[in-house]
């Protein structure tokens, strides 16, 4: 279980997160939706302990990870996996070495066992024949699948996904979405997905949290979100250009901006 409580973060004078509260239940899929530049990535970095919030706590079980520094975070990090938006595979290592790296680092397992585990993880993402290639030789979608295999290397309790399907073709997207759902259903992995892909969230999420202007605008099951009467929520899930969320980011009147010096 991951519980965020009153997370605040400013970059200089810009407030990115202004008091985020939510709970991601154990063995459930939680989607965090928000528009681009809405502080989703910042929130994700805070959740994995890579960034300290200005205020607030993040609890993993009963442990407040915002209080932990350096190697103090290691026990938490060994229990989580993270799928980065661009994969973030180590380019100097082969696909197989990338996946075996965390296993070699953190377990005393024999080389042969690790070899079998790597094959199993790759089979899970459908890329068993690519073990000896380097990430640079793979397409973006394949890199992302390898990165998912790496995130699963240590059989984590929680996996975080940063925009798991952005930039992928519809087929690979739905394969990854199905994989998230399977991992959760079969292995009981708690999944926390940060994305702007609304349809995907509606399909597999147990819970959806919508971020807007650094706050939680709405949270609930897909059905609850769909049935929400809030016009901002409605605009968000339908993706309509007209509504309370303005496409125009500037506050000054256009006419005034052009004509009045």
């Amino acid at each position, binding site marked *: 279980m991951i519980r965020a409580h009153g997370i605040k973060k400013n970059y200089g004078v810009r407030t990115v997160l202004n008091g985020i509260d939510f709970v991601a239940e154990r063995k459930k899929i939680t989607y965090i939706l928000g528009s681009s530049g809405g502080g989703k990535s910042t929130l994700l970095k805070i959740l994995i302990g890579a960034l300290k919030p200005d205020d607030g706590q993040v609890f993993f079980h009963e442990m407040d990870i915002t209080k932990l520094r350096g190697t103090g*975070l290691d026990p938490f990090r060994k229990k989580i996996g993270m799928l980065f938006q661009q994969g*973030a595979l180590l*380019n100097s290592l082969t696909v197989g070495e990338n996946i075996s790296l*965390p296993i*070699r*680092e953190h377990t005393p397992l024999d080389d042969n066992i690790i070899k079998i585990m790597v094959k199993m993880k790759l089979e899970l993402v459908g890329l068993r024949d690519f073990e000896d290639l380097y990430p640079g030789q793979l397409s973006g979608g394949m890199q992302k699948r390898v990165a998912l295999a790496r995130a699963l290397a240590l059989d984590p309790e929680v996996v975080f996904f940063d925009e798991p399907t952005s930039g992928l073709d519809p087929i690979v997207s739905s394969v990854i979405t199905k994989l998230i759902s399977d991992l959760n259903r079969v292995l009981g992995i708690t999944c926390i997905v940060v994305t702007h892909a609304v349809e995907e969230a509606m399909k597999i999420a147990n819970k959806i949290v919508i971020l807007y202007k650094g706050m939680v605008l709405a949270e609930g099951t897909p059905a609850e979100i769909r049935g929400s009467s809030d016009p901002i929520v409605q605009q968000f899930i339908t993706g309509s250009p007209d509504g309370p969320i303005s496409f125009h980011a500037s506050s000054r009147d256009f006419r005034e901006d052009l004509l009045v010096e």
Partner: protein
Amino acid sequence: MKNFVGYLGRAFITFLQDLSSLYYLFRETVFQSFVLITDRKKLSQARLLTQIDEIGTQSLPLVLAVAGLLGVAMTVLISFQLKEVGGYSYIPGLVAVAIFREMGPLITALIVAGRVGAAFTARIGTMKVSEEILALETMAINPVRFLVVQRFIGLLFSLPALTTLASFMAVFGGFLFGSTRLGIRPDTYVRETLDVLTFTDVYSGVIKAGVFAVVIVMVGCYRGLVVEGGAEEVGRATMLSVVSSTLAIIVLDTVMTGAFYG
């Protein structure tokens, strides 16, 4: 004028911040090096030999070529000056001492800073902007141990070895010129060299090389680790890395030369 003072002030503060960060990185690197060499399993995965090969062996041809030519050039210059007073017999010793103590370590370090230090920054900087370093941290793998330590140990072995080879090559260059063009008998040239050159000359050069190795690795890796942004920033960091390590090498060289003679 006021702007200029402000600029200088800010630059100085940045310099101090960099210096203190470099110190922490150095401390962590030394600590993680001990962690690595006391852990046999991790040591076997660290590919130290690959690093030594990449840094050392691959720089060797360039370093030797430059060193040999430098030896010739120095001998030519010195012979012009000594011709007037007929002091050719001083040439072998003078060239050898200047090379082992000063030119060998300096020129090797500058070449390696440009070739290897820049590559460190570019490599690590690219990993930083593509979130590979964040990925390592998220996997509870210490990035300093994973990225800096092997380069640190690799260069700490390679640079003194390269420097010594370069110095021998430069002295050999001087020997070739002296014995073929200046009419110094080969056996005399060798004897004169060995008479003047002391063990201290050789090892003070090696010590310099060790210090330069630390500078190149620390500056190179640090500039890479602090990159923020995209590919453009990696390029800028690489340039900064070469400039600052070159400068640091020359300053430290002067200080050490003074200290060893003082």
